[in-house]
């Protein structure tokens, strides 16, 4: 399985990431792009996100999570994850998986996103017009992650 896991310090184009995700011989490519929303859960306007990271271990965590997707029968996997200041509409994360058949590709992308939510070394702050708030994993994030433990 080919692994490409990268920490992006500036805005990236998810369409280019998908176009450049060569998947020779694969029968299926699934991908997911997470975008910065313009409103918080309570409806308040968001000016942007700030994603704090660890200088060495964040990129390693992306690589470890990508490597763990070997549990599906994949030929290639790609993760690109932003850090720093992110404006509404910009991509936060891009994930792609290539496999012989669609189920493995869909499942791998679902798995990778659940792992990234709870296990990637990031700390996310929502910056609103009325102040900032650090976001922590919710019970539903943990429940999503737990689906893959068995």
């Amino acid at each position, binding site marked *: 399985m080919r692994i490409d896991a990268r920490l992006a310090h500036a805005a990236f184009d998810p369409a280019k990431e998908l176009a450049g995700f060569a998947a020779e011989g694969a029968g299926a490519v699934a991908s997911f792009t997470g975008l910065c929303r313009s409103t918080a859960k309570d409806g308040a306007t968001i000016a942007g996100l700030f994603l704090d990271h660890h200088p060495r271990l964040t990129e390693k965590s992306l690589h470890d999570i990508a490597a763990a997707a070997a549990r599906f029968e994949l030929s290639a996997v790609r993760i690109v994850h932003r850090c720093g200041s992110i404006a509404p509409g910009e991509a936060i994360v891009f994930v792609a998986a290539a496999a012989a058949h669609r189920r493995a590709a869909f499942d791998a992308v679902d798995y990778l996103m659940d792992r990234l939510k709870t296990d990637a*070394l990031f700390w996310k702050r929502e910056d609103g017009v009325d102040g900032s708030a650090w976001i922590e994993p919710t019970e539903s994030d943990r429940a999503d992650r737990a689906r893959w433990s068995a």
Partner: protein
Amino acid sequence: MIIGFYGRLAERFGRELELDVPDGTDVAALRARFDGLDAATVRALVNDTTAREDAILGPGDRVDFLPPLSGG
């Protein structure tokens, strides 16, 4: 010793602190010197590796305190 903080902890204590601690100080004792480093929610790394609470710290060590993660 260098202590690193991330996320909400970095906002509170700064990104990095240099601190001299007495011989025999372990991770639990270092936590106790700061408010809000509850072992149940804040993970400690010593030299980039998850550490036990009773790990003894030396002057050349780097300790990172990680609040709950939120990526994706």
